[in-house]
Structure formats: structure tokens, C-alpha cells
């Protein structure tokens, strides 16, 4: 069966999403086990796939048995093997963690919710695994449509935020489609590897240039790269926690993957970095993104979730900048940060999920005294925050290490300063939150804290805590194994030509 892993990884969730949809009308209790099994299989096969890729190199899976340029093929290499694993593991952990909140928030719609959830994961996994430019568009739309549905299920402002996301996301996807059309008109092919083979003779073509720009802008829109980020904060903030802790870690990261795939495989680094002399300008854009993301997060003084969404905007800047530094180290940092940021974001959003589950809100006012009330949740939050800040041995430090190293090697000190600035801002941001959670309302009696009566401990249920702690442990483990991940996987994910 291991031969069919690449197909299974997408098909099993898809089939089970359909089964869940039917099961939802029969017996709601069936939905979660099916969803869990599907994602477990997906996670298992993605890990299996990753190990096979490590042994054998690129795996090509011909769907329908047609040879690649004719039919659609899956190419699994080190890059998407890694991202696949991350996506499936994050989705699985989040599924377990959000079971309670899903069932509480949507008692009548659990079936459709799980259906959309699994379909979204299917879409994301498909985006990552596919080797066909158009197939990617279709999967992009699956991930997007399900995402709009999931995000809009939250608070009362959610539908409007989601609708704005829909406009922006559709423009982004259409731009990507248009870019693929431009590539198709000059190459006649839709297969990524095939296009890359044809392109070198067309490097000077205006159409290729336009295709590149349009694709990039489309992808940037979808990943909320700074000037195009306006949809993200509201959409994620008002979403139900189960949805936001799935979408926030994965969607932007998968779009970064798409960007890196476009740079590395479709347009080739030669074209992206040498023929087009725009990488410097894009890194400056990333600098602005990082700085503005940090400043916007600083300016947000009401809602924890919204603050985190602005941090996502800044993190997107990290990865775009790292990828566009045009050297191996920077690219390594960007790829590593896809993994790390997905896990970090999952960690903090799960924490927010727990808080919302217990306190019914993530406003800064709701957080008072949380260290006493939910010490275990907050403990995990500290790990996530430390990783976001970039403190060893959590993984966030090491991707930042590679990104800054790349910036130094490229001589791009602006980016380095931006990264350090954002780390410092993250310190301020998270410690502002910690302070709120740590200091209980001050009593007038100025003195030691033992004279007021703190709230009793009221922790989230175990099914929410265990995944959270698994994520926390993964954050540290990934940090400690950074060397192996880079040596064994990421190194091979970057073409030899990129120095």
C-alpha cells in the first residue's frame, strides 16, 4: 500500500469527509471518530511518505495512470514531504483539541462542521502534494471555500469579515489562475516540472514576467503579505476557535509553500533571483511587512486573538523575506519557519481556544488572573510565546537564526534589523499579555498578594490540554532536532543551483 501513499494522503480525507457528511444526518456521534481516523491515516501516510522520500528521492505518482504532461501527477519531494507532515499533524492535533468546543458551539451542525474541516485539510494537503499548476488552483479553491464557511461561523462580525476574505481570496486565486494561463499560453503545459523545463528559452518573454508577477501577487493576497493583509485579522479574530486554530497555522503557511514552490520549481531560482532583479525590492517589502505587522500588533490593545493575527502578518513577512533573500541559508530559514510557525501558531491558538472555552472571550479584560485559573494552559502559552519570541531551545529561535544568517550573508541588514525588531516587539506583546494574566486585580491594600482571594483553578478539559502539551513538546523537540531536519530534509529540498 505504501506505493499509493501520495494518493491516500488526499483521497482518504476526501472520502471520509463525504462519509462524515452522510453520517452527520444519521448519527452525529459518528463524525468525530471518522474524522479522527481519516486524519490519522493522512498523518501516518505523510510520515511514511516523508521517510520514503528520504530513502528514495522524489516520488512521482501518476493519477489515472497517465504520464505527467498529459495527466496530473503528484510529485513528492523533500519540500512537500515535510510540509505534508506538518499540515496533517497540525490538523490532527487541532481536531482532537477542538472536539469539545465544536460540539458545544455547533450542537446541530457538527456533521457539516467536521465535513468542512476535513475537506479543508484535504484541500491543503492536495495543494502541497500536487505537481500540476491548475490542479493547485482547484484545491486552493476547496481550501478557500471551506475556510470561508468555517470562519464565518463565529461571532456576529464573522460573516462580514469572512465575506471580505472571500473577495480578497477570490481575487488572489483568480490572479493565480490568470498567471497559470499566461504560463500556459507561452509554454502549452500545466505540469510544474514540465513548465520549468520549457521556460529557460522564454526568460525574456514579457508574458512570463507578467505571469510571475500575477502569480506572486495572487499568492501574496492569499497569504496576507503586508499591504494585502487587510482581510486577515478580522477574519481570524471573530472565527470560532476550532476553525481559527486550524486555519491560522496552516493556510498562510501553505501559501508560503506555494510561493516557494513557484520560485524553486516552476520559475526556477535562476529566473527568480538572477533574471529578475527584484529580490532586493521584495525583501524590503518583507521588511515593511515585518515592521508593520509588529507595530499593528502593538497597537492592538483589546483582543488577544487579534494581536496574534497581526503577529501572523509579521511572520508572513519573515518567510517571504527569507525566501527572497536569494541564498540557501535564507531559503532554509523560510522553509524551516513554515514548519515552526505552523506549530507555534497552533500552540498559541489552541491556548486561545482553551481560554475562550472556559472564559468565553479572548479580550484582554477576560485574561485577568488566568495564570492562577488555568495554569496548565498558560504554561503551554509561555512555551508558544517563547518560541514566537525566538528563544532557544524552542524551534522559533532556529528558523530565526537561519533567516538572520541568510540576511547577513546576503548583506541585507535591513531584514536582520527588522527580524530583531519584531522579536523585541514580540517580547513586549507577550509579556503584556503575561502581565495581564499574572497580576490579579490590585487590591487597595498595598502589600503582599496574600490578602485577596484568587479565583479557584478552572482548567480546560484533558482532551484540550493533551494536544496542547504535545504541541509544546514538539516545539522543543523540533528545536533540538533542527540540525537533523535541515541536514536530512531541507537541504535536499533546495535545488543545488541555489547557493
Amino acid at each position, binding site marked *: 500500500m505504501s506505493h499509493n501513499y501520495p*494518493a491516500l494522503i488526499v483521497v482518504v480525507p476526501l*472520502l471520509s469527509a463525504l462519509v462524515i457528511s452522510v453520517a452527520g444526518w444519521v448519527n452525529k456521534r459518528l463524525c468525530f471518530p471518522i474524522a479522527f481516523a481519516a486524519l490519522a491515516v493522512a498523518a501516518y501516510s505523510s510520515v511514511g511518505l516523508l521517510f520514503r522520500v528520504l530513502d528514495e528521492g522524489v516520488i512521482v505518482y501518476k493519477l489515472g495512470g497517465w504520464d505527467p504532461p498529459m495527466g496530473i501527477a503528484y510529485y513528492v519531494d523533500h519540500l512537500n514531504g515535510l510540509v505534508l507532515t506538518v499540515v496533517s499533524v497540525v490538523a490532527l492535533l487541532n481536531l482532537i483539541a477542538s472536539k469539545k468546543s465544536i460540539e458545544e458551539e455547533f450542537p446541530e451542525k457538527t456533521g457539516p462542521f467536521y*465535513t468542512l474541516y476535513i*475537506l479543508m485539510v484535504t484541500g491543503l494537503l492536495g495543494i502541497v502534494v500536487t505537481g500540476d499548476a491548475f490542479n493547485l488552483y*482547484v484545491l486552493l479553491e476547496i481550501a478557500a*471555500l*471551506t475556510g470561508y464557511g468555517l470562519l464565518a461561523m463565529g461571532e456576529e462580525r464573522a460573516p462580514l469579515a469572512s465575506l471580505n476574505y472571500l473577495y480578497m481570496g477570490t481575487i488572489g486565486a483568480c490572479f493565480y489562475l490568470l498567471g497559470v494561463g499566461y504560463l*500556459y499560453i507561452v509554454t502549452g503545459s500545466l505540469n510544474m516540472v514540465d513548465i520549468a523545463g520549457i521556460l529557460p528559452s522564454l526568460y525574456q518573454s514579457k508574458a512570463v514576467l*507578467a505571469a510571475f*508577477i500575477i502569480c506572486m501577487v495572487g499568492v501574496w493576497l492569499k497569504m496576507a503579505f503586508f499591504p494585502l493583509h487587510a482581510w486577515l485579522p478580522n477574519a481570524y479574530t471573530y472565527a470560532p476557535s476550532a476553525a481559527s486554530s486550524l486555519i491560522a497555522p496552516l493556510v498562510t503557511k501553505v501559501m508560503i509553500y506555494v510561493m516557494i514552490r513557484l520560485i524553486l520549481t516552476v520559475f526556477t531560482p535562476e529566473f527568480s533571483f538572477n533574471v529578475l532583479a527584484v529580490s532586493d525590492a521584495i525583501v524590503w517589502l518583507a521588511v515593511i511587512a515585518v515592521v508593520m505587522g509588529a507595530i499593528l500588533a502593538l497597537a492592538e490593545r483589546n483582543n488577544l486573538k487579534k494581536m496574534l493575527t497581526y503577529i501572523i502578518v509579521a511572520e508572513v513577512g519573515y518567510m517571504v523575506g527569507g525566501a527572497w533573500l536569494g541564498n540557501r541559508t535564507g531559503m532554509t530559514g523560510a522553509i524551516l519557519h513554515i514548519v515552526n510557525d505552523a506549530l507555534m501558531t497552533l500552540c498559541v491558538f489552541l491556548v486561545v481556544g482553551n481560554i475562550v472555552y472556559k472564559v468565553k472571550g479572548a479580550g484582554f479584560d477576560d485574561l485577568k488572573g488566568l495564570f492562577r485559573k488555568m495554569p496548565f494552559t498558560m504554561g503551554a502559552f509561555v512555551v508558544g510565546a517563547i518560541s514566537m519570541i525566538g528563544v532557544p531551545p524552542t524551534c522559533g529561535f532556529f528558523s530565526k537564526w537561519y533567516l538572520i544568517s541568510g540576511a547577513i550573508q546576503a548583506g541585507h541588514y535591513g531584514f536582520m534589523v527588522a527580524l530583531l525588531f519584531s522579536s523585541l516587539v514580540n517580547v513586549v506583546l507577550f509579556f503584556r499579555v503575561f502581565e495581564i494574566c499574572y497580576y490579579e486585580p490590585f487590591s487597595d491594600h498595598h502589600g503582599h498578594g496574600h490578602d485577596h482571594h484568587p479565583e479557584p483553578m478552572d482548567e480546560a478539559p484533558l482532551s484540550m490540554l493533551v494536544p496542547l502539551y504535545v504541541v509544546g513538546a514538539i516545539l522543543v523537540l523540533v528545536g533540538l532536532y533542527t540540525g537533523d531536519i535541515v541536514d536530512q530534509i531541507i537541504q535536499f529540498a533546495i535545488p543545488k543551483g541555489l547557493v
Partner: protein
Amino acid sequence: MKITGLIVTILVGGLLIYAAADFPAWSDPNSPASTYLSPHFIEKTMEETSVPNIVTAVLADYRSFDTMFETTVIFSAGVAVFILLRTFRRKEPEARHYRHVLTGVTMRIKEGKLPPSDDFERIDTLWTPPDLIIKTVCRLLIPFIQIFGLYVIAHGHHSPGGGFQGGVILGASIIVLAISHNLRTVVKRMSEKLDAVLCAVGVLIYAGTGALCLLLGLNFMDYSALASVLFVDPIMARSHGILIVEIGVGIAVMCTMVWIYSNVSSRGRYEQGL
């Protein structure tokens, strides 16, 4: 906002026009798009899949994976609309509108106060006096529309059409019923549950066919694996495989269209349509 829009529009438009200069001439038979992949499709389709309609063959066989996800997109849109709009009302409304068929008097009757007579017909709040022509024409037309839809699905191998178009036509026929009569008429014939289940079943037929190929030992969606089940040669098996998935697409699309329409037009209440 208007100025931003204008600037963005002009920038993008400028870029596109600039790039259009390097396009191959319009309708040029020697353009890359026409010479690279498409000749293979045009020339080999018949012998590889035995389907004369190249679009159908490419859609449901060469790029069947795309099409499977296309169907999934529609399905997820259906689920998304459902989850967004559907509201389950816990308590019945106090009063409903009824029309006395014989006299044509419309009245608001409280729940449980309805006289036990068959003369009363439930009507919508937005009810307009029935138009006999529309009702009759629609009732007469719908069977033909549906037969046409089935024909489009079945004959997609040889003529324009296929599961998607046929499905939309079938769905449209039901929507026409809903518009000309009312939503309840549709729900009576096809309950929400059936509709929703059929959506999933349609996609399941598609994806299941692909998975069956996988179980039979070939790659996902390689219909030639079906030869051993259908007792035909592999090429004919491809043709049959395409038919099977087209039927799946048809069912899924039909039901999803009805599902979306019912939810959108009744604002998720499932009581009163247009």
C-alpha cells in the same frame, strides 16, 4: 476606496496589456498551447479512451482528478451554504397563512386552530395569486427538462455536455418547480436529508470509482482497472468509467444546486422559498 480601486485597476491592466504583446498571435495554430499537449489529446483520445468528445475525455479521464475536486468544490460550497444559513427553528411559529381553495380567501390561522378540512392550502407570506399559465407550463415542461438533463449526462461522450451540465439542468428543473409552486412542494418530493445525502453520494460515486481502481491494483482513477469488473477491454473500461463518474457528478451537482437554492431562497428556514 474608489481611487485605490482605480490605481490598482490601471496598474494591473497596464501589466496585462504590456504582457499581451508577447502572446502568440490569436487563433494561431502554431502557438505553444496548440502544439504542445493538445495534439496528443486530439489525436489519441479515441484510441486511448474511446470517447469522441475530447473535452469529456480529458475532463473525466486525463484530468479526472481535477474534475473530482471540481465536484468537491461544489459539494463543499453546498455544505458551506448549509452551515452558514440553515437555522433550525426549535418552536413552530404561532400562526401560518392559509388559503381557502374554494373561495380564494387567505387567512392567518393560529397553530392547531386549522379546521379539519382539505380545502385549506398552506401559503407563503410572499404569496401571490397563482398564475395558471406558469404553473401548468412548468408542470408540463419539467419532465422534459429532466429527460433532457439525463440525456445530456448520458450522451456526454458524443455531444457537448456531461455530468456537470446535465446535473445543473436537472437541478434547474427542480428549482423551476420550487419557483413556480413553492419550496414545500420540492421538500415534499425530495427531503432536505435526502438532498444532502445525495450530494455526498454523488461525490462518493466519483471518488469511490477512483478508489476502486486503486483497490484493483492500479493507480487512483486509472479506469482501465475496471476492466476486470465490467468485463470489457481496458479502453472500453475507460469509457465506461467516464460514464460512471459523470453520473456521480450529475447527482452531486443536481442536489447541490437544489440545496444551495433552498437555503439561499428561504434564508435557511426551509419554509418559504421565493
